[in-house]
C-alpha cells in the first residue's frame, strides 16, 4: 500500500475512534446526570422515588438532629418556599443555617431523604463575609 493511502486510513480510523468515544461521553453525561431542582420546583411536582439534585439555602432555625440523622429545610434562594430534608452521612464543616447547599434527594412521603454523603456546601475559597460596617 502506498504511504499516503496508509496515512489516510490511519487518520480515518483515528477520527472514527475519537467520534465514537466523544459520542459515548456525550450520551452518558446526559443519561447519568441528575437535574438540579429548587425547592419550589420540587413542591410543584416531585415524583416519589425519583432522584433530584436539590439546591438552595438552609432555612433559618430549621436544623435539628434526631438520632444519627440531620433534619433541615432547604429554602429557595429568592422565595420562602422550602422542603424538609432528612439526611444521614458526612456533614461538611461549612454547613450552617443560611448557607447554600446541594444534596441529592429522593421523595419519600412528605419528606425528601438525602442520599448518603451527597451533601455539599460551598468551597471555603468562595467565602465572602457580609460587610460588617
Amino acid at each position, binding site marked *: 500500500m502506498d*504511504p499516503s493511502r496508509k*496515512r489516510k486510513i*490511519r487518520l480515518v480510523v483515528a477520527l472514527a475512534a475519537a467520534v465514537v*468515544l*466523544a459520542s459515548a*461521553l*456525550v450520551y*452518558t*453525561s*446526559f443519561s*447519568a*446526570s*441528575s*437535574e*438540579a431542582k429548587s425547592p419550589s420546583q420540587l413542591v410543584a411536582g416531585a415524583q416519589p422515588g425519583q432522584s433530584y*439534585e436539590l*439546591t438552595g439555602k438552609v432555612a433559618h432555625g430549621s436544623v435539628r*438532629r434526631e*438520632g*444519627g440523622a440531620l433534619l433541615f429545610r432547604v429554602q429557595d*434562594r429568592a422565595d420562602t418556599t422550602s422542603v424538609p430534608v432528612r439526611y*444521614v*452521612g*458526612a*456533614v*461538611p*464543616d*461549612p454547613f*450552617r443555617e443560611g448557607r*447554600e447547599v*446541594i444534596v441529592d434527594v429522593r421523595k419519600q412521603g412528605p419528606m425528601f431523604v438525602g442520599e*448518603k*454523603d451527597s451533601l*455539599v456546601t*460551598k*468551597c*471555603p*475559597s*468562595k*467565602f*465572602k*463575609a*457580609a*460587610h*460588617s*460596617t
Partner: protein
Amino acid sequence: MAILGRACLIIALGLAVYGAAASIYGARARKPAWVESGRRAVYAMSGVVTIAFAILIAAFIRSDFSFGVVVDHSSTTTPLFYRATAAWSSQEGSLLLWVFLLSAWSSLILFVLARKGKLREIAPYATAVLCGLGGFFLFCSIFLANPFTTLANPPLEGAGLNPLLRYPSMMIHPPALYSGYTLFTVPFAFAIGALITGRLDASWITSTRRFALAAWFFLGLGILLGARWSYSELGWGGYWAWDPVENASLMPWLVGTAFLHSAMIQEKRGMLKVWNVSLVLAAGVLAVLGTFLVRSGILDSIHAFGASTLGVPFILLIATMAAASIGLVIWRRPSLRSEHRLDSLFSRESIFLLNNLVLVGLCFVVFWGTFFPLISEAVTGDKASVGPPWFDRYTVPLALILVLLSGIGPVIAWRRATVSKLARYLAIPLAVGVAVPLVLLGLGVSYHLEALLMFGIGAFALTVVAQEFVRGAGARRAMTGDPPPAALLALVRRNRRRYGGYVVHAGMAVLFIGVAASSTFHHQRDVRLSPGQTTKVGGYDVRYQKATFNVANDHRNTGALISLGAVLDVSKGGKHVATLNPSRGYYPDLSQGPVSRFYQGESTSEVGLQAGLRRDLWTAVEPDTSRIDRLAAEADRKFPDASPRLSLFIAGTLAAGYARNPPPATFRVIDSPLVTWIWLGGLIVVAGALIALWPVGLRARRTAPVGYGARVARELGRA
C-alpha cells in the same frame, strides 16, 4: 497608604499599555530602542505592582481596618501567620496576587532572554501579549475589584479569616497555583509571538521550556497541596471530589503534561508543530479559564458559589485569547508543516503521540464534566450535573493507559523500534507487572480488576525506571570506574532532564497505586457512639473512650478559643494499635450573644490521623452541642452584659460540663490503605521536577570528552 496602592495600580496599567505599544511599534518599525523600552516597562510594572502588593500585605498584617478587604477577611484575633496570608482569600487580593506573579515571571523570562540575546524577533510580541494580560488584570483590579477601597468610618474589628482557611498550606497552596497559572501564560505569549513572526522552528520551545516545566511543577504542587488540605482539614476524608475548582486546575496541568512530552518530538524530529503550538495555546487559555472558574462563580447555577462582577470581562478575554490562537494557527498552517513523517507506529514518536491523545482526552473529559451544567442548560433548558462516578468511568481507564505508556515510552527507540530489542528491555518489567497482581491475589487481596490492573501496571512502570537507572549507572561505571552511587549521581547530573523525567514517572506510578488502593479498598463508617461504645471499621475496633475539651488553649494557633473532642482507642484483635484525638474547634461569632457566640460561629474539624505506609486511620468527630447551645442561650439571657472574661468563663464551664457528661457524638472513621503513597508519590514527582528544573552548573555543562557518547552507546548496546 491605600491611595499609594491605588496610584501604583494606575501607574502599572499605564506601563502595561505603554509596554505593549512600544514593543509592537519597535518590532514593526525595526527600532530596537523601542523594543528595549517596552521590555523595561515590564520590569517597571513588576516593581510598581510589587509595591502595591506589599502595601496590601502590610495592611493585613497591621490590621488596618480602613481597607475594606481587611475588614472583610481579617481581624486582630486572626493569628499573624494567617493575617499575612488573608490577602489572597479575597477576590481583590487574589487578582493582585495574579498580576504580581505574572509581572514577576514576565520580567524574569524577558530578562533571561535579553541577556542571552535569544528570540529577538519573537520577544517584542510576547512582551505585548504579557503586557496585555497584565493590563487586563490591572484593569479588573482598578475598576471591578479594587483592593484599595477605603472605608470612611473604619470599624474596630474585622470579620476574620475563614477558619477553614487556617491551615499552614494557606501560605503555599494559592501562590503555587497562581504561579502555575501565570507561568503557563509565558509559553502562551511566546507561541503567539512565534506565530505572528513566523519563526516557527523549535527555538521558542527550547527557550521557554524551562518556564513550561516550572508552570507544570507549580500547578502540580498546588494541586497536591490542595488534595492534602482537603484530606486533613475539610473533614470528609477525601482528597479529590471532581469539584469545578479542582478540575479548573487539573485541565491546564494535563495539557501542559502533554506539551512537555510532545515538545521533545519537535526538538528531536521537527514534527508535530501544529500540535505543539496548539497545546501551548490551549494551556494558556485553560490557565486563564481556571482563574476565571475559581474567581467568577460562573458555575454558580449548580454550586451557588457567590456572584461576581468579573464574568463578562473574563469571557471576553478568554474568547479573544481562543479566537486569536485559532486564527493564528490557521493563518500559519503552511509554515507549521512537519519536517518528517512518522516512520512507524512502532516508535517512541507514536507512543508519545498516544500519550498526548490520552492526556488531551482526559482534559476533554474533565472539561465536559465541569461545564456540563452550562452545556445541559443550553441543550435541554435544564441545569443538570454529573457526579464523580461519571468522571471515574472515563478517567480510570485513561489513567491505566497513561501509566502503561509511561513505562514503554522511555525504552522504545525513536523512529522505528524492533520487537526483539523492545522485548529485551521490557522482559523484566513485564514479568514484575504480571507477578505483582498475582502475588497480591495470593496474599488474599480481594479481586477488583481496575485496582489490580493499576498495581500491575504501576509495578511495571516502576521497574522500567529502576532498570533505566541501573543500566545507565552500569554503563557509566564501566566507563569511569566510579563506585555505583557516584556513577548514579554523575548519570543524573549529565542528563537532568531525562532522569528527572524518569523520577517523575516513578512518582506518578506510586501516586496512582495509592489512589487505586485507597479508593478501592477503603472502609468507612459514620457512627454515633456514647463513651464506652465500640464500632468496627475494616479490621479495627474503635472505642470511644472519653470526651475532651480545650478552652483558650489554641495549640494549633488557628484562633479557635474552644474545642470539643474525643479520645478514641483503636485496637486490632485485642491488641492496642493507636490512640486518636479528633476534635472540633469553635470560632467565635461576635454578632451572637455574649456566651453563645463561642459556639455559634464557624467550626472546623481537626482530624485524628494515624498515618502509615500501609494504611491510614482517619477519624473526625462531630460533637452534639444541642445541650450546650440551650444552656448558652439561657446564659445569654441571664448575663446580657457579661464581660468578655466572664462569658469565656461560662462558655468554658459549659465545655467542661460537656466533657464530664458527654452526649453521644457522631464519628466518621476511615480505614484507608496506601493513602500515604499518594503524598509520597507527589513528593517524588516534585523531586523529579526539581532535578529537571535545576539550573545546569558550569561543570556539568562542559562538553563531554570525545568518544564519550560512542562509548556510552556501546555499553548500552551491550547491557
